[in-house]
């Protein structure tokens, strides 16, 4: 066992440290980002969150916006597994692995963004399940801690199992993987719903206090998550020799068209409610889209987001542009941008502006916040890069266990046809 693990680690290190020029440059770039972000965070740790532009009026900002967006990515990555099963997309385990690794990386970034946002990171044990004093079941943040960690453990278990089996040249155990993968689907829905409830459960924040927020979160997640996966699949089939059929990619794109349409419909329903009823609660939407009392900081982002989503809908809806890889990729990028704004700053900032006593404090992230966020993104991308660099050779049978001379291996069980 120890010998196998040692061989696995040796092989993994070999694959991580060996790659093309582009790979080395990419990793070096990510390491630089992490170092830069780490330096920014050390300043923040020393001086306090005053180096951000968050203040008592707008007490959550860029960090929590990124967190919210990335929970969606984590959730959507795994849900792709369903169509992969239904439509027999060929290398199903490879797609599962990519989805799960993306989910793991997204959760790492989520935890990173929450960690850099808290004022007393030295007290992190207080929020840990069992050893802390988690305010469960009353606090939605406590729920979020639980479901996110559960989701992380779930994904790590599935991927480890598949890869460990593949390392030994064996198929994954269906009895182990299938129930866990099926369970990971409601779990994915739960992490994003709980994150939405975090906001929608607050009576004092009318912009969020809205039953449609959780459905909107899910709909937008099924836009941005697959958008990332589509591009990843194209990169990986070129660089890592993964055999992904065009038909699979086009099927995902077709499903995404529904998600984009539903997401835009939800947005329209929300805007109708705000503008037709025209109550005092409209101030937040008004601030987001048109500005309030001369404060117009978010307008450009808000309209960029709407425009990006609408154009993406057209590109994904029309078969000609959907099946053309150039326009498809343009659509993916637009979708990513649209949802990133909508669920990040476009959700958090207008929810808090004007504040509960009507004051308008215009929040714009500082350089420090950008820097720290870049570091967290760097960390997540590096985690994904390193994991995928090991996982693909293992999955493709290029990195397998080689028994020592004379070692007796246990007989493989007969795999039954399914």
């Amino acid at each position, binding site marked *: 066992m120890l010998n196998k693990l040692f061989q696995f680690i040796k092989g993994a290190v070999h694959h991580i440290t060996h790659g093309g020029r582009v790979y080395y440059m990419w990793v070096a770039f990510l390491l630089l980002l992490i170092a830069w972000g780490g330096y920014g965070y050390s300043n923040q740790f020393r001086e306090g969150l005053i180096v951000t532009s968050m203040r008592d009026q707008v007490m959550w900002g860029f960090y929590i916006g990124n967190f919210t967006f990335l929970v969606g990515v984590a959730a959507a990555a795994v849900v792709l597994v369903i169509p992969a099963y239904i439509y027999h997309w060929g290398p199903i385990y490879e797609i599962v692995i990519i989805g799960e690794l993306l989910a793991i990386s997204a959760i790492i970034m989520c935890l990173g963004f929450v960690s850099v946002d808290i*004022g007393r990171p030295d007290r992190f044990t207080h*929020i840990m399940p069992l050893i802390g004093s988690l305010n469960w079941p009353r606090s939605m943040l406590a729920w979020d801690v639980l479901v996110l960690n559960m989701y992380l453990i779930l994904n790590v278990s599935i991927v480890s199992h598949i890869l460990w089996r593949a390392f030994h040249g064996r198929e994954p155990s269906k009895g182990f993987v299938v129930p866990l993968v099926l369970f990971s689907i409601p779990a994915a829905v739960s992490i994003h719903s709980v994150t939405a409830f975090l906001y929608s459960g607050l009576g*004092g924040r009318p912009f969020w206090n809205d039953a449609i927020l959780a459905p909107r979160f899910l709909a937008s997640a099924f836009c941005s998550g697959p958008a990332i996966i589509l591009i990843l699949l194209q990169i990986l089939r070129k660089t890592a020799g993964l055999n992904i059929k065009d038909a699979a990619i086009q099927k995902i794109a077709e499903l995404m068209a529904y998600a984009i349409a539903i997401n835009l419909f939800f947005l329209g329903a929300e805007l109708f409610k705000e503008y037709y009823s025209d109550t005092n609660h409209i101030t937040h939407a008004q601030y987001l889209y048109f500005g309030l009392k001369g404060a117009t900081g978010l307008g450009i982002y808000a309209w960029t987001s709407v425009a990006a989503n609408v154009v993406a809908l057209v590109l994904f809806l029309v078969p000609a542009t959907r099946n053309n890889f150039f326009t498809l990729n343009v659509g993916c990028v637009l979708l990513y941008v649209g949802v990133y704004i909508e669920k990040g700053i476009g959700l958090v900032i207008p929810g808090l502006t004007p504040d*509960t*006593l009507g004051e308008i404090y215009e929040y714009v992230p500082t350089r420090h916040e950008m820097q720290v966020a870049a570091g967290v993104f760097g960390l997540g991308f590096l985690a994904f890069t390193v994991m995928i660099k090991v996982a693909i050779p293992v999955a493709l049978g290029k990195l397998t266990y080689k028994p020592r001379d004379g070692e007796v291996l246990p007989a493989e069980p007969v795999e039954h046809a399914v």
Partner: protein
Amino acid sequence: MADTSPNPQDLDPNAVHGCASGGSCGCSGGTDDVSEADMDAPMDGNQVMGTYYDGGKIENRSMGGLALTRREFATSMGIVTGAIAAAGCSGDALEVFKQTRLREMTQPQVKEFLARLEREYKAKYNTDITVGATPPAEGVKFAYALDLSRCIGCRRCVHACVKENNQSRPNPEGEHNNPIQWIKVLEMEKEKGINLEEADPYYNPDKVPREGHFYMPVACQQCENPPCTKVCPVQATWKEADGIVVIDYDWCIGCRYCMVACPYGARRFNWAEPHLPQKDINPNTHVLGNRPRSKGVVEKCTWCIQRVRNGRYPACVEICPVGARKFGNLNDPHGEIRAVLENKRVYILKEDLNTQPKFFYFFGV
């Protein structure tokens, strides 16, 4: 109640004309002229004896089982910290790991904790600061009433509050300027009525009240159904038996979810290390109230818990030159609060949110 507040009827609002909106005009009377004997006088007789931070005495709707787990953890952490200490760490650095929640401490532990705080403050501020832990008195439910027709917007309450409660002071020359005030006074136009979207918290005329305007000071409403305590992920904030919503500054992780949840903008965050010069320190403190705070934690109005649990009025009530502020025991049928509720027209801020504030605005005239 103690008889320290000025008689509001005797004061002419015009007497404070000419006092700029700040409280720097030297009329800060009231805060210092109460004798030690008064301070120690119990509020309403029957103080709770026995273990104060016992959980049972404090309204706690969260899981009972969790607390046990925490205690078990404290024990096991003792072993872990012992191991770390053996590995060569210094004893002081380990305090953070040994820290348990105030609510779970037994009385001897609380005593030890308070002594440790006093030592730390002595070292940090070079001042003798006493940290008390007077528990809630039986049968007392505090409540507050503010007369909107009387308030003139002079902001003396704001500054008396800062002076009493050891908030971070302005520090324009320092690297970070992060002054904290718990009371925010909103100026509103009489024509528009109570409309928060039109309110101005930064009004700064030469004289108050300004023609055609009225003033609405807002601080913690000490809700009976507080959204802030519900959302705290680590149970670092809760409502005490006498109705005051408090924070364990040594347990708060600084996630600010409570601030997001509060519909009244009543909570403040220490974005930087608080700037509290030695000369400004109020050395009479309560562990859940005005003791000096650290960077990265949330704080809020506690109705001067260090005063009101010892039979005194909050600093804002004492300082108010027009007697717009009333404070007392909601359970006292002959008290000031009940008199206001029974005889005046009362306005509750954001009543539709069902936060059930124990802070009542009213129209005295």
